[in-house]
């Protein structure tokens, strides 16, 4: 019953579309999503195809550029543009899956801590504090090194480290909502605690949770890049932005574009996720809309 009907969705959509941050951030993410999904069709070249004669070709518009290689080639003659498009697949997969899973885990624990208070809260909050004392990048490298490289391990590492962000915010928000009169009213009707938590409080925590998920996707993209940079993500024959950055760093003096292209892609993607998160937080909140 609490699922918004057609009118509610329409209104929410209109509020979102009216927000320039959502339009710009969401638009870029959507564009990226289409690129990633259609990578086999859209990428002009095979991202793994080497052509040593055409190695270190500068991007389009620079002296010595080759037609058909928009962003130039790396030292092995692979098309940077195609590798960038294929790399977005890993980046977005990790962003969406890791951020969602971290949100589910963190929000569940945050709801419980904020609602039951007492020892449940004490236990979860201490756990969060201890967790956050670990340096995150070091911990993720350690985790992946122990579990073994691969997309699954990268996702697991992000979830295990970053659930605390969700937990803390959702806990505080739940505590605030639990004090409101509508919760007292729901209790006096006789709803069970679980039902109040899931059906009454969660929908009100949702806007901030969605905003956080978007921000977390930005963070996940960076973490994935860091892990591929140090070679702990997927195997090196799959193009990733972090892998491209690592490769570009080594050949910076021969061809700066090999480093610049993935860096700019990374920067724009994280910026877009942050804009989207910020915009969604404002336009999804039913109380702020009144």
């Amino acid at each position, binding site marked *: *019953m*609490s699922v*918004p*009907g057609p*009118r*509610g969705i329409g209104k929410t959509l209109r509020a979102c579309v009216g927000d320039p941050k959502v339009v710009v951030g969401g638009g870029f993410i959507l564009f990226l999503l289409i690129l990633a999904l259609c990578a086999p069709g859209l990428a002009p070249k095979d991202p793994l195809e080497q052509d040593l004669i055409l190695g270190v070709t500068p991007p389009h518009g620079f002296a010595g550029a080759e037609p058909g290689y928009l962003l130039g080639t790396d030292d092995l003659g692979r098309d940077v543009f195609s590798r960038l498009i294929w790399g977005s697949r890993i980046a977005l997969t990790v962003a969406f899956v890791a951020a969602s899973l971290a949100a589910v885990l963190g929000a569940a624990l945050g709801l419980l801590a904020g609602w039951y*208070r007492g020892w449940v809260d004490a236990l979860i909050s201490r756990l969060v504090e201890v967790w956050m004392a670990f340096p995150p990048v070091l911990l993720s490298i350690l985790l992946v090194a122990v579990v073994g490289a691969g997309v699954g391990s990268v996702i697991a590492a992000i979830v295990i480290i970053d659930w605390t962000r969700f937990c803390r915010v959702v806990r505080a928000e739940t505590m605030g909502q639990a004090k*409101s*009169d*509508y919760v*007292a*009213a*729901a*209790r*006096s*009707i*006789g*709803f*069970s605690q679980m039902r109040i938590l899931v059906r*009454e409080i969660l*929908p*009100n925590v*949702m806007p901030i949770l969605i905003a956080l998920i978007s921000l977390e996707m930005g963070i996940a993209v960076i973490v994935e890049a860091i892990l591929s940079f140090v070679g702990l993500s997927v195997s090196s024959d799959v193009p990733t932005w972090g892998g491209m950055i690592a490769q570009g760093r080594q050949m910076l003096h021969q061809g700066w574009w090999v480093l610049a292209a993935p860096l700019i892609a990374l920067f724009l993607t994280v910026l877009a996720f942050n804009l989207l998160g910020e915009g969604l937080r404002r336009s999804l909140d*039913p*109380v702020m*809309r*009144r």
Partner: protein
Amino acid sequence: MTAPILALSNLSAISDRDQAPILRGVSFDVKRGETLGLVGESGAGKSTIAKAVLGILPRTVRVTSGEVRFEGADLLKMKAGPLRRLIGERIALIPQDPMTALNPARRIEAQLTDGPRLWRGVNAKEARALALKLLDEVHIRDPNRVLRSFPHELSGGMRQRVLIASAFALEPRLIIADEPTTALDVTVQKQILRLIRNLQSAHGTSVVFVTHDLGVVAQICDHVTLLFAGRVIESGSTSQLLDRPKHPYTRALLDACPRYDRPNAGLRPIPEAVIADLYAELGQSGASR
């Protein structure tokens, strides 16, 4: 003489934090179809009593003695499951602030029929028919639009009407009205009071009306219980308590109220001596007031 719907006897409670008394042996009865005004200044224990009856006392409040009997059953001794059902079906709340008492993320239609859907197993179609009937009873003109609305799309008066409609949804025996008009402006306040009054007599519901406004008490209550610092100071029929108050605090409180029938009489603050006497009776200084 019929048995009272609600009977509090010697109810005492303390704060779990500093052991300070919140209620000190409160007793009163509410009979079938009657409206009892529960009056007192902030911190007098009105809301604690309301929460005790509704089974939603905060964990920081501990009941030390006494009974809350509803239709003969002591609510304080009941098991959680049956208690939830008993209170959910037969006791309803009209909350204080219509701005915060509706869930901002849920539509009116869903919120209005929460009770019937939970306890009567009413399906979606029946719930909608019931919701329309309820909104009609509280004189909402455009019920279909209101049902589709979210709370922030309605005015304060409309929301309070929705809350009243929702309180009557299960035809409860007792309604706790927790200062339902304080957040509304005076003209709307009057309409809402009349609405509660009419619905109450139509359904034969008993009402405990929590308020600090003696003007509201004069309009709607049959009996009044005046509280101070968790203790009953004076109890009686409304006319008796307002016209022939016995206790000095009651008299002082009436003198401190603005009255339209004697605009030039001025307002007198409650004399310090009266308050000091009250605290002397309680055996403590007035410092905690």
